[in-house]
C-alpha cells in the first residue's frame, strides 16, 4: 500500500496560496486596459500607442515571473512538509520538524521507491482558485475566477515573454503602417484574451477566452484587408475555428451536465478521475473537444487555415500562429486532462483518437513543409507538425513532455518566424526561391539566430528541441518493444514511428530552408510591388541589409532561450545529476495527482538508446538534405534552388507525390473555392463531425446508458484507429523513406490534400450556398411566400367573382333574395 502510494507521489495535497497566485486576474486585466487605452487614445500618442502596449506587456511579464516564482516556492514548501488532515478533505502543511520525521520514516519503509518519485515525502499542491459570482441562472450561481497552478504560470510566462518580444519587434516591423495603432490595440487584446484563457478557472471562461483569441486572430490575419486574399484568409481562419467551436460548445455542455452541472475545471477533472462521471459521456465530450482542438491547434484535417493565416503580419504569425494561440488546443487538453485521459482510455492502450490525430498531423505537416517556397508557409506547416507532436504526446500520456515541448517550441518557433520576418523585411518577400539566397552575408545576426532556431527545431542535442522531442518519443512507450522495459502509459509504437519519421523530415526541410535562404546566391533584387505588401517599410532598394536592433534583440533573446530552456527538464538520472537538477520543469509544472484534479500518470523511463537513435536519424536526414542542396544543387549553380534533373523529373511516382504536396493534399480546394464558401464548407464538414458526435451523444445519453453499447463503441473506435494507424504507418513510412531520396512522396500527400480534402470541402461549401439559394428561391419565396400571397390573391379574386352578383338588375336581386329565402327555409324545414 505504502509502496504504491509512494510510487504515485504524495497522497495528499495542501492548498497553495500567495498574493500573486490569488490575484493573477490582474495580468489579463492590465492587457485589457492597455487595449482600451490604445483604442481610444492611441492615435494621439507620440508612438501611436505602442508604448502603452509595450509597457503593459512588460509589466505583465514581470508579474508572470513573480507569479511563477511564487508557485515554485509553494511547490518547494509542499515538498518539505507532510500534509496533515485538519478537517474532512482539508490538509495543511505540518511544521517542518514533524514533517521531516515522518518523511524519514517513510523513507526507511520505502527504500527503492524513493528514487522513482520526487514525492516520496512531501505533499501535493492544490491549484489556487479565486472566484466570484459572474451570473446566475435557474437559481444557480456561476462564477468567474482564476486558477493558478504550474501549467498556468508556464503559459503566463510564455505568453507574456513572447508577446513582449513581439511587441518590441513590431515597433520596427510595422512602423509606418496606416493602422499602426490598431495593430497594437489588437496585440494587446489578443494578449489579454490569451491570458484570460490560460487563467480560466472554469470551462465557460475557457470558451470565452477561446473565442476571443479567435477573433483577435481574425482581426490580425486580416490586418491588410484591402486585399481580398487576406480577408479570405481571415475568414477562413475564423470559420474553420468556428467549426471546432461547435465541438467545443457541445463538448463543454456535455461535460457540464455529466459532472453534475459545474463548469469548474477542477471539479470536472476530479469527477472524471474518480469515475463518477459516466465514461460514455467523457468519451463523447472528449471527442467533441477534440474537434475544437483540431481547429484551433491546426490538427489534420482542420489545419488548412493555419498556412493561410500567414497572410497576417509576421510578428503576429510568430505570436499567435506559432507560440501562443495555436497551442490553446493543447492547453485545453492539458487542462482537462482528466477528461481526456479517462475518456479516451489513454492508459494501457496503444492507440487512441488524440494520439492518432496528432501523429497524422505531425506527418502531414512535415511533409507539406517540404514543398513550400514561401518561408513562412514552411514554418506554418512546421508549426502544424509540431502541434501534432504535442497532441501526440498528450495522446500517449506524456503530459509533461507535451507541455515542455509547447514551452520550448514557443521560443524556437517564435525565433524562426521573427527571423523569417527579419529576412523578408530586407527583401520584401517571403519567397525563398525567387527573392532570397545567400542572405547570411547580408544578415549575419539573423542568420545565426535562425540557424539556432532550426537546430532546436530539428531536435539536435543539446538545444531545447532535442530534450522535449526526446521526452515525447520516450513517453510513447513504444521503444519498450525493443528494450522491453516500458514504464509508460501504454505501448504506442505507431506513434513512436510517426514521431521518428517526423523528426527526420523536420531536420531535412529545415536544412532546405537554411540553404535556400541563407546559402547560394542572392536571387532577389528584382523587387516588384506585389511582394512585400507585408512591409509598409518602403525600403532601400538594392542590397538587402541587416535589420535594426528592435528586431535583432528579440532574436538574440529567443535564440538564447532556444539553446537553454531544454535544460530545465533534464531526464532523471542524466549524467548522474542530483534530483534537484533534473526534471525541474515537470516537477513544478505537472499537477500532483494528490490534488485530485490530475490523473495518475506514469512517467516513462528515459532511454539512452532511443536518444541516440533519434539523433542519428536526425543527423542522417540533415546529411541527406545537405548532400542534395549544399552539394548537388550548389554544384549545379549557386543560384539554383532545385536540381534540374532531380528525382521528381525522373520518377513519375515522385512527380505525382510532389504535385500532391504542392497542392497541400488538395484540402484547401475543398474548403475554399468560392469566397465565403470556404467557411461554410468547413462548417458543413465540421457539422457532419459534430452531428456524428451529437447523434452518438443523443442516443447514448438519453436516460439510461445502454451498457452493451459502451464496449461496442470503444471497440469500434479502437478498430477505426487501428485501421487509420496502419494506413498512416504505410503512408508515413513511404513518405519518410522518400524524403531521404528527395522531395519524395511529398507530392502524393499534397495531391490528396488539394484534390481530395480541399476539393471536397470546397464542393460542400459551394453546394451549401447553392442549397441556400434553392431553399430561399423555391421554398421561402416559392412556397411559403407564394402560399401567403396567393391566399391574398385568391380572396381578392373571389371578391372579383362575387362582384358579378351585383349585376345592377333589380329583378335579379329579387330572384337571389327569393332563392336565398327559399333555400334557407327549405333547409330549416328539413333539418328540424
Amino acid at each position, binding site marked *: 500500500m505504502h509502496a504504491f502510494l509512494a510510487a504515485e507521489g504524495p497522497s495528499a495535497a495542501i492548498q497553495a496560496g500567495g498574493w500573486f497566485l490569488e490575484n493573477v486576474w490582474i495580468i489579463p486585466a492590465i492587457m485589457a486596459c492597455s487595449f482600451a487605452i490604445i483604442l481610444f487614445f492611441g492615435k494621439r500618442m507620440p508612438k501611436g500607442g505602442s508604448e502603452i502596449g509595450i509597457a503593459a506587456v512588460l509589466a505583465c511579464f514581470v508579474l508572470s515571473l513573480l507569479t511563477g516564482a511564487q508557485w515554485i516556492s509553494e511547490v518547494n514548501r509542499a515538498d518539505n512538509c507532510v500534509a496533515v488532515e485538519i478537517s474532512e478533505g482539508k490538509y495543511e502543511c505540518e511544521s517542518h520538524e514533524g514533517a521531516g520525521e515522518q518523511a524519514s520514516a517513510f523513507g526507511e519503509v520505502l527504500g527503492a521507491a524513493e528514487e522513482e518519485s520526487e514525492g516520496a515525502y512531501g505533499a501535493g499542491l492544490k491549484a489556487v482558485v479565486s472566484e466570484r459570482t459572474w451570473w446566475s441562472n435557474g437559481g444557480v450561481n456561476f462564477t468567474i475566477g482564476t486558477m493558478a497552478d504550474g501549467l498556468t504560470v508556464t503559459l503566463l510566462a510564455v505568453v507574456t515573454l513572447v508577446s513582449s518580444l513581439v511587441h518590441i519587434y513590431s515597433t520596427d516591423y510595422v512602423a509606418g503602417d496606416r493602422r499602426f495603432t490598431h495593430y497594437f490595440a489588437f496585440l494587446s487584446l489578443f494578449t489579454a484574451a490569451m491570458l484570460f484563457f490560460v487563467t480560466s478557472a472554469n470551462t465557460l471562461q475557457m470558451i470565452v477566452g477561446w473565442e476571443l483569441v479567435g477573433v483577435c486572430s481574425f482581426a490580425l490575419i486580416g490586418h491588410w484587408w484591402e486585399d481580398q486574399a487576406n480577408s479570405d484568409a481571415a475568414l477562413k481562419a475564423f470559420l474553420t475555428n468556428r467549426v471546432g467551436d461547435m465541438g467545443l460548445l457541445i463538448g463543454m455542455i456535455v461535460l457540464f451536465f455529466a459532472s453534475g452541472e459545474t463548469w469548474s475545471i477542477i471539479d470536472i477533472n476530479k469527477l472524471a478521475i474518480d469515475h463518477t462521471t459516466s465514461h460514455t459521456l467523457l468519451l463523447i465530450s472528449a471527442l467533441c473537444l477534440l474537434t475544437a482542438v483540431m481547429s484551433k491547434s491546426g490538427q489534420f484535417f482542420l489545419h488548412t487555415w493555419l498556412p493561410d493565416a500567414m497572410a497576417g503580419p509576421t510578428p503576429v504569425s510568430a505570436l499567435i500562429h506559432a507560440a501562443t494561440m495555436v497551442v490553446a488546443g493543447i492547453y485545453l487538453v492539458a487542462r482537462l486532462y482528466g477528461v481526456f485521459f479517462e475518456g479516451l482510455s489513454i492508459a494501457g492502450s496503444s492507440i487512441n483518437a488524440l494520439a492518432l490525430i496528432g501523429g497524422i498531423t505531425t506527418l502531414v505537416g512535415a511533409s507539406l513543409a517540404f514543398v513550400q517556397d514561401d518561408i513562412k508557409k514552411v514554418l506554418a506547416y512546421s508549426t502544424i507538425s509540431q502541434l501534432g507532436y504535442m497532441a501526440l504526446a498528450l495522446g500517449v500520456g506524456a503530459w509533461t513532455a507535451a507541455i515542455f515541448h509547447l514551452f520550448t517550441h514557443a521560443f524556437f518557433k517564435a525565433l524562426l518566424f521573427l527571423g523569417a520576418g527579419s529576412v523578408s523585411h530586407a527583401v520584401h518577400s517571403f519567397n525563398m526561391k525567387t527573392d532570397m539566397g545567400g542572405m547570411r552575408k547580408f544578415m549575419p545576426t539573423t542568420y545565426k539566430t535562425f540557424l539556432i532556431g532550426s537546430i532546436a527545431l530539428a531536435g539536435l542535442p543539446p538545444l531545447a528541441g532535442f530534450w522535449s522531442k526526446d521526452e515525447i518519443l520516450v513517453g510513447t512507450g513504444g521503444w519498450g518493444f525493443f528494450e522491453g522495459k516500458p514504464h509508460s502509459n501504454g505501448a504506442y509504437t505507431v506513434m513512436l514511428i510517426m514521431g521518428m519519421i517526423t523528426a527526420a523530415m523536420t531536420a531535412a526541410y529545415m536544412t532546405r530552408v537554411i540553404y535556400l535562404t541563407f546559402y547560394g546566391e542572392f536571387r532577389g533584387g528584382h523587387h516588384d510591388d506585389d511582394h512585400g505588401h507585408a512591409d509598409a517599410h518602403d525600403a532601400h532598394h538594392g542590397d538587402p541589409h541587416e535589420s535594426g536592433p528592435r528586431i535583432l534583440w528579440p532574436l538574440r533573446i529567443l535564440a538564447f532561450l532556444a539553446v537553454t530552456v531544454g535544460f530545465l527538464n533534464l531526464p532523471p538520472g542524466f549524467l548522474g545529476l542530483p534530483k534537484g537538477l533534473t526534471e525541474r520543469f515537470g516537477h513544478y509544472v505537472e499537477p500532483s495527482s494528490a490534488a485530485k484534479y490530475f490523473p495518475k500518470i506514469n512517467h516513462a523511463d528515459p532511454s539512452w538508446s532511443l536518444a541516440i537513435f533519434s539523433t542519428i536519424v536526425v543527423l542522417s536526414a540533415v546529411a541527406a538534405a545537405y548532400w542534395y542542396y549544399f552539394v548537388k544543387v550548389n554544384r549545379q549553380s549557386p543560384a539554383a534552388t532545385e536540381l534540374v534533373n532531380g528525382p521528381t523529373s525522373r520518377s513519375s511516382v515522385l512527380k505525382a507525390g510532389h504535385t500532391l504536396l504542392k497542392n497541400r493534399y488538395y484540402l484547401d480546394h475543398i474548403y475554399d473555392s468560392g469566397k465565403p464558401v470556404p467557411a461554410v464548407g468547413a462548417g458543413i464538414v465540421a457539422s457532419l463531425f459534430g452531428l456524428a458526435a451529437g447523434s452518438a451523444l443523443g442516443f447514448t445519453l438519453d436516460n439510461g446508458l445502454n451498457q452493451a453499447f459502451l464496449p461496442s463503441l470503444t471497440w469500434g473506435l479502437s478498430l477505426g484507429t487501428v485501421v487509420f494507424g496502419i494506413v498512416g504507418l504505410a503512408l508515413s513510412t513511404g513518405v519518410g523513406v522518400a524524403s531521404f531520396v528527395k522531395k519524395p512522396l511529398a507530392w502524393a500527400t499534397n495531391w490528396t490534400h488539394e484534390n481530395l480534402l480541399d476539393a471536397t470541402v470546397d464542393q460542400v461549401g459551394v453546394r451549401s450556398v447553392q442549397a441556400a439559394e434553392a431553399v430561399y428561391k423555391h421554398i421561402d419565396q416559392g412556397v411559403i411566400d407564394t402560399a401567403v400571397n396567393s391566399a*391574398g390573391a385568391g*380572396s*381578392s379574386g*373571389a*371578391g*372579383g367573382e*362575387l*362582384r358579378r*352578383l*351585383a349585376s*345592377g338588375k*333589380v329583378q*335579379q*336581386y*329579387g330572384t*337571389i*333574395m*327569393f*332563392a*336565398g*329565402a327559399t333555400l*334557407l*327555409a327549405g*333547409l*330549416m*324545414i328539413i*333539418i*328540424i
Partner: protein
Amino acid sequence: MISLVSFVGLFAEAFNRPPIDWHALAPEITLLVVGALVTLLDVVLLEKGRAITPAIAGLGLLAVLVPIVTLAVDGVASNPRMAFGGSEVYVVDGYSLVLKALFIIIAYLVVLMSTNYIAEGDYWESEYYGMLLSSVLGMLVMASARDLITVFVALELLSIPAYLLATWRKRDLKSNEAGLKYYLNGVFASALMLYGMSLLFGVSGSTILVEINAAIGEAAASTAIISLGIVLVIVGFAFKVSAVPFHLWAPDTYEGSPTPITAFLAVGAKAAGFVALMNLIFVGFWSRSDVYSPALWILAALTMTIGNLTALRQNNLIRLMAYSGVAQAGFMLAALTVAGESAEIAQTSASAVVTYLIIYAAMNLGAFAIILAVTRRTASAEVAAFDGLFQWAPALAVLMTVFLVSLAGIPPLGGWYAKFSVFTALLEANVWWAYVLAGLAAINTVIAFGYYGRLASRMWFEKAPDSLDTTSLRVPFALQAAIAITAVATIAFGVYPAAVTHFSDIDVPAAAAALVP
C-alpha cells in the same frame, strides 16, 4: 260562426281604451311634433324656411333626448313600462331606451352631415328633414315594438320615407335608380316577411311576441310552418340589415343616394333592422333556437365572408363602405346566433349586438362624414380620389385612418371592442359551431384589413393626383362637428369601453327575461 254576443263583447273591449302611459310615449310624441312642425314650416314658409329647418330638425332631435333622459332617471331600466295597459305590446325598458337614444343621435349626426349638402343642392329642404324625422320616428317605435303589427307598422314607417330620401335627387338617374331598387327589393322583402308573419300568427293565434314565443315553444305546434314563418320573418329583416344574400340592393342604393342618406341607411336603417331582429329573437322566437340559430349561423358566415371578399375589389368608396357594412352586419348576426343557448348567453349576446351597434354607428358615420368632406373637393367617391389625402388634408386623413382602423377592429379604437364583444358572446356559448364561427370571424378580420388598409395606405403612401387642387380644405362647421363627435366617440369607446358598456350592458328585452328559467 261569430255569435252576436261575442261581437258585442268585442266592441265593448275595443272601446275600452287601455290606460296610456304618456311619459313612456313622450319621446315618440315629441319627435312627431317636431316632424309635423318641420313639415308645416315647409308649407307655410316655402323657400324662406331653408335657413331654419336644419336647425329646427337638429334641435328638435336633441329635444327628444329630454324625455329619454327623464325616463332613464325614472328607472325604466330596472322597471320597464308598458305604454298601453299591461299587455306587452309596446314596452319601454332600458334596452329600448338606449336604442332610442342611439337612433336620435344617429339622426342628429345625419342632420349635421346633411346641412350643407342639402343646402347647397337645389331641392326642397324642409321635406327632406320632415321625411328624415318620420323615418326616425319609425325607428323609435321599432325599439319598443313587441307585437307583429307594431313591428310591421314601425318598419314601414321607417322605410317609406327612406325610399323617398334615396330618390331625393330626383333629376339624377342614379338617384332614381337607387330609390327604385331600394323600394322594390324592400317592398318584396316586407311582403315575404308578412307572409311569414301570417304563418306565425296562424300557428300561435296571437300577434303579441311573448305569446307567440309561448305558443311556438310547445312541441305540438307544426314545426315546418314555424320554420317557414320564422325564416321568412328573419329574411325580411336580413334584407334590412343587408345580410348576404339579401344585400345586393345596398351597394347600388348607397351609391346612388345622397351621401348623408347613405350614411343614414348604412347606420340607422341597419340598426333598426337589428333592433327588430333582436325584438323578434329575444322576445318572439327565443324558445325556437333550433330554427333561428342555424339560419342565422349561415347568414352570418355568408355575410361576413362574402361582404369582405367583395369589398376587396371595390373601386368606389361608397360601394366599398356598403360592402364593409355588409360584413359588419355579419359580425352582429354572429353574436345573435348563440342567443338561444341560455339566459346568460342571451344577455351577453344582446349586449354584444347593442355594443356593436353603438360603436359601429360612431365609426361608420365618422367615415361617411369624412367622405362627405373630401368629396366636396374631389367630387368623386372613387378610391383613387383619396390618393395622397394625407398631403393636402392631413387631419382628415388621420381621422379617416382612425375610422377605418376602428372598422377593421384594431385596438385601441372602438371597433376592436365591438368585435371583441361578439367574440365574447360566441366563446361564452362554448359550443363547437360557435367556435367555428369565431374562427371564421377572426379570418374575416384579417381579410377586412385588406381593403381598409389599402384605402388607408392610399391616403398616406400615394401622391395626390396632379390635377387636384391641394390647397388646404375648409370643412363646414356642421360637418366638423359631426366628425369631431364621431371621432371622439370612436377613440373613447376603444380606450375606455366602459363608456359603451355602461349603456349597452342592458337586460335582455323584458319578455325574454321573464322566460329565463
